[in-house]
């Protein structure tokens, strides 16, 4: 009847319970399957086994400083928009041991020998994959390649999901990062009511899917899925004009708007924690009480931390205004000459998770208005 040979680029329909078997296969192949999970009234990215661990029938509703979940009761698993966590915690862990130094007469180094986990990320949105691609540019450079990131990234399996219900804080279309996945995934799902439409993105994805019970999609299903993603693209909650970035920000370091926004900003670092592209880190020493053994760790840091720019002779960014300006003029400004692209993927997390609801789309628009007047 129909040719059921899979190839990279094929699109098939998969009954939803097949996903459980797919994840089990991944685990058999040495992957830790991690994905969204309802926990403590929020959605976190953690170890999941299958559909039963996914947030079933959950729709999200986001506003500045607000993330709410709505129970739809439907048998759908990916209607929500991700919450504060992003996948960067798996490639760029918030804490990671580097080495231990012990003093036995002389100092001796003991390297960290923990094996690198292999992750299968389940449910990666287009903005999130764009963020991973941006972090690839940061952590995997010709002159410097972060070994922790590199090893985790090399073993990564990505099960992507196309967003169908963007929230009010989403603006991936403005940043050119979504809602539809284009490339860079192993498998990509578009969720229908009864089935998943699955696109094969890589040989690895193909070989895993080949063992599942799938079907060729009808034209109706294909069209419905396509239209659903297009509808999503048209219902973005927010919009950012990027045509004059980065110059709009890097040429206006003296804008009044920096004073305005700094009166609201608490310098709490939330935005940098939830942002899937922020990459600053620090290294700390945990020394034992006798001073004979110390464990050096790499930990996340934030340019909003008051001592982030501390040098002998003072702090080069001693107030909130200078720190907020640094964050935004980096993210939507100097990131481009550094890495070739802007640093924002339009996920909207910084807007939702800012306790005072600062909205970077609004800030950029306000600076533009101020500069033009």
């Amino acid at each position, binding site marked *: 009847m129909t040719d059921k040979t899979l190839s990279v680029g094929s699109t098939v329909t998969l009954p939803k319970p097949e996903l459980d078997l797919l994840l089990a296969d991944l685990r058999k192949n040495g992957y830790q399957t991690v994905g969204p999970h309802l926990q403590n009234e929020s959605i976190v990215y953690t170890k999941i086994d299958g559909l039963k661990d996914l947030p079933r029938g959950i729709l999200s509703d986001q506003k500045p400083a607000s993330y709410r979940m709505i129970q739809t009761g439907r048998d759908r698993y990916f209607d929500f928009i991700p919450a504060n966590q992003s996948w960067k915690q798996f490639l760029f862990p918030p804490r990671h041991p580097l080495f231990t130094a012990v003093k036995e007469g002389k100092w001796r180094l003991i390297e960290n020998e923990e094996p690198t986990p292999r992750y299968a990320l389940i449910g990666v949105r287009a903005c999130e994959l764009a963020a991973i691609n941006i972090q690839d540019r940061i952590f995997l450079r010709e002159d*410097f390649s972060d070994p922790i990131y590199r090893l985790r990234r090399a073993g990564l399996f990505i099960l992507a999901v196309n967003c169908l219900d963007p929230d009010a804080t989403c603006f991936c279309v403005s940043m050119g990062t979504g809602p539809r996945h284009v490339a860079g995934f192993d498998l990509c799902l578009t969720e229908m009511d009864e089935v998943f439409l699955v696109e094969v993105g890589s040989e690895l994805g193909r070989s895993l899917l080949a063992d599942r019970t799938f079907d060729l999609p009808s034209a109706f299903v294909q069209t419905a899925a396509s239209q659903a993603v297009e509808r999503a693209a048209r219902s973005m909650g927010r919009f950012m004009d990027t045509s004059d970035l980065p110059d709009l920000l890097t040429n206006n370091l003296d804008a009044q708007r920096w004073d305005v926004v700094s009166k609201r900003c608490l310098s709490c670092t939330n935005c940098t924690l939830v942002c899937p592209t922020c990459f600053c880190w620090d290294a700390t020493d945990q020394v034992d009480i006798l001073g004979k053994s110390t464990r050096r760790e790499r930990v996340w840091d934030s340019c909003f931390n008051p001592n982030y720019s501390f040098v002998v002779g003072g702090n080069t960014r001693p107030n909130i205004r200078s720190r907020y300006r640094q964050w935004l003029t980096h993210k939507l400004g100097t990131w481009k000459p550094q890495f070739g692209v802007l640093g924002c993927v339009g996920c909207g997390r910084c807007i939702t998770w800012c306790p005072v609801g600062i909205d970077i789309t609004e800030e950029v628009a306000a600076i533009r208005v101020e500069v033009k007047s």
Partner: protein
Amino acid sequence: MTTTLIDTAAHSAGYTDKLLLPHWAEIVKIIPEAEGVSTFHFKFTDLEVQARYRFEPGQFNMLYVPGCGEAAISMSSDLETSGGLLVHTIRHVGNVTRAISRLKVGDVVGIRGPFGTSWPLDAIRGMDVVIACGGIGLPPLRGAIYRIIRDRARYGKITLLYGARTPRDLMFPVEYEAWKKADIDMQVTVDRGDDSWTGRVGVVPMWFYHFRVDPHKTAVLTCGPEIMMRFVIYEALARRIPSDQIYVSLERNMKCGQGACGHCQQGPYFICKDGPVFPFRALENIFNVEEY
């Protein structure tokens, strides 16, 4: 992209595969300098690492005191003068540098590096060079001075302007005679002097009021407190020295030294890898922005 004038230096004699892993180096000599400042001579405990270690004046190492942390310290000599030893002149003001001040000959620290860009000693050949520095800004230039002296005929008039707070804070005073003998016009000034000081009292930038420079063939190398550098640059630009002939060494909070952790950024640059030595042309738009 504004960094076309900058060559990012190849860095890290050492591990490229391991994050932040240092090589151990032993303290071979400690020379007390001015108050709160000492010069340390280090040698890697691994002879192979020691043999292959290379750096250019202007670059820096990350010095690691286990249990304490790392500090970015410029090299204050060059390899030929130091006989291959790593020479660091350290001002003991922070946690790590104070911990280093408590170490003795034979003690060991971790070293990663060298990192960063170096003084453009090739690019300024044939030119008159004004080296303007102050306080702890002289050590990062001392290696460049040694190199220039060794290659003296290749440069034009060399002027060394050096300022410190008081006569007691002057760095390396025993070397000034040798430098003057090597045909370097050295002008020392202090912020304030006492009865016994017969040298200049004033500030480094004011030298420009008294001497003429030919802007076409003069290069300026400057390192020191940012305020001093700002005025040196101002005076140099006022005398029409082109901004790509003025080189500055910037200091920022450095943690990784490799342009990865984000701390040392100013504008689009990672000071640790795109600098610390910059032609001023690359910094024109961001240098004087308050708190940037």
